[in-house]
């Protein structure tokens, strides 16, 4: 047992990217297809209000609403906020105003960006018009932004059948978020020890079980685990399965054996691949040891030590 002197806390970039594919209903499809065609559509509620951007259900009555209307591509700013330092994925890369715009003929507001020379050029009540994106695909970004406009106001909303050739029926909502992940004290110690080809766990001060990998807490006692304990290197296969399906991007021949391995001194089993023995000869109780590859940050697999098998009673609590 060693005192838990904290190594330098590990940190690493973690990028989460997800391209959600989303279906559009009839109203959203008409609206986004309309943007592609340079037409702004809204939807009319039963009490005659025009919602832009359109919603599929009346926010007051929850009635389904499908009556499409065309509104102007010009409108009035109802509130705004000056964004001096645009963030990377926002509509403009030069300073701009966020605006809520009430398009001519609409009774609700659309959120978008306004291209203006500076905050002094923006005010609530100012007139603006849509600046269309050069390439349009049927997405809210088909509106590149709004721009100041001093021409005449558009008229009333007029009925529109919402029919367009080749309607857009879905969008792909791309997102990327960047994180710097830190695993915290206990897992940092575990990972740091692996770099020296050692496996460390932590002992619960209450029930004395040794957790590996340690996460800093004993789930039975709900207290912090503190005493660092080196376990292994050898261990016992407590249970296993034979994998017959090759995973994408995984350079391991099937079938192979994936096992739970209770390292000597550990209070629970961790998992790893078993090698160096035909897959159909792996068994519960098999004694194994880790095999490291050059530069590997964790054991590549475990192989038989050649010792006699462990007695079932010696590991049955760890299955």
């Amino acid at each position: 047992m060693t005192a838990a002197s904290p190594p330098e806390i590990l940190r690493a970039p973690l990028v989460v990217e997800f391209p959600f594919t989303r279906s559009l209903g009839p109203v959203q499809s008409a609206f986004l297809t309309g943007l592609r065609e340079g037409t702004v559509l809204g939807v009319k509620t039963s009490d005659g209000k025009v919602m832009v951007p359109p919603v599929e259900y009346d926010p007051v009555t929850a009635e389904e609403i499908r009556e499409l209307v065309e509104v102007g591509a010009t409108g009035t700013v109802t509130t705004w906020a000056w964004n001096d330092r645009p963030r990377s994925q926002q509509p403009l890369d030069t300073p701009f105003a966020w605006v809520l715009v009430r398009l001519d003929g609409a009774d609700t507001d659309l959120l978008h960006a306004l291209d203006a020379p500076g905050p002094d050029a923006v005010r609530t009540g100012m007139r603006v018009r849509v600046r269309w994106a050069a390439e349009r695909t049927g997405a809210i970004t088909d509106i590149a932004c709004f721009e100041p406009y001093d021409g005449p106001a558009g008229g009333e909303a007029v009925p529109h059948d919402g029919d367009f050739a080749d309607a857009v029926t879905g969008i792909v909502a791309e997102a990327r978020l960047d994180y710097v992940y830190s695993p915290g004290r206990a897992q940092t110690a575990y990972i740091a020890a692996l770099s020296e080809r050692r496996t460390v766990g932590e002992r619960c001060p209450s029930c004395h079980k040794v957790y590996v990998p340690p996460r800093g807490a004993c789930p039975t006692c709900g207290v912090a685990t503190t005493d660092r304990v080196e376990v292994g290197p050898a261990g016992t296969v407590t249970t296993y399965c034979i994998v017959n399906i090759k995973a994408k991007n995984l350079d391991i021949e099937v079938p192979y054996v994936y096992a739970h391995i209770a390292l000597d001194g550990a209070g629970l089993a961790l998992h790893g691949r078993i090698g160096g023995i035909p897959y159909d000869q792996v068994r519960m109780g098999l004694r194994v040891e880790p095999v490291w590859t050059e530069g590997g940050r964790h054991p590549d697999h475990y192989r038989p030590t050649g010792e006699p098998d462990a007695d079932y009673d010696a590991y049955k609590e760890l299955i």
Partner: protein
Amino acid sequence: MARYAREVAVVAFAQSDHLRRTDELSEVEMVMPVLHQVLAATGLKAGEIGFTCSGSSDYLAGRAFSFTMTLDGVGAWPPISESHVEMDGAWALYEAWVKIQTGEADTALVYSYGKSSPGSVRDVLTRQLDPYYVAPLWPDAVALAALQAQALIDAGEADEAALAAVGARSRDAAVANPHAQLRGPVPQGDYQVRPLRTGDCPPIGDGAAAVVLAAGDLARRLCERPAWITGIDHRIEAHSLGLRDLTDSPSTRLAAEHAGVFEAPVDTAELHAPFSSQEVVLRKALGLTDEVSVNPSGGALAANPMMAAGLIRIGEAAARIHRGASRRAVAHATSGPCLQQNLVAVLEGDAR
């Protein structure tokens, strides 16, 4: 007390110090101390808790099912009755309160936590917006709050000086709060998104909080002066910002009506207003007069750990009742852009 089937009180509250970064702590390492504090305050052991409920967000952690990372801290083996909300812990408290009302539990442990430091929380929060019309534009949390602030200014309900005063008063109050992240005078700073300056915006930080709820006589045994939840309700507004009057918060007002806020005066209000302008909106919605002590803890402008700051408002209000500094308090929690969702609770101490 006749409003609900059972009397339920907050009997203990604890929170971490709220810090800009906590790289040395995993989620469970951050949460465990506050869990231990509330259990110690009540004398309850982990295994004696009837129901456990937590609030947190995968988008802050950048990983799926991130709440499972903290279950080790609540003694989840042997199996316990447990649940989670992907929201502020105030909503976890609501679920726990319902669980006690149904009679399925007599005590509940509620906790929540957020580590904003691994990611860029301004960008992360854009992922809760309408994915069709809004999220592709990436309007960050400060930008949306700034639109609301400008609407208030246009309506003549605030000006930049009044907003600055809200921030200054909050951080002055936070001097007495050892857990707060920003305490005392803080420069009002440059515009983040005009009209909001740095001083109008909450600090970004990591933190955790925990509360124990108990029913009836058990609450009286566990706590000298329980903070009875005599009313609690939560409401939501239309998702689209363009459908809403940003200068008002009808959902807060409605929740307050259902929670009985207006039936008698309150002496304390803990409001979850991450932006100075939002305090203006909430004061109006709740009809708070100058006699009410608003955010004596410093509020979210002094510490705003995501997913915990709302639960902390309930905890701070309860703690004030525990120590006899308040008789009847209102606590408010919010989630989503521009006060999208709002929870209101009334907490009362026994007369003495």
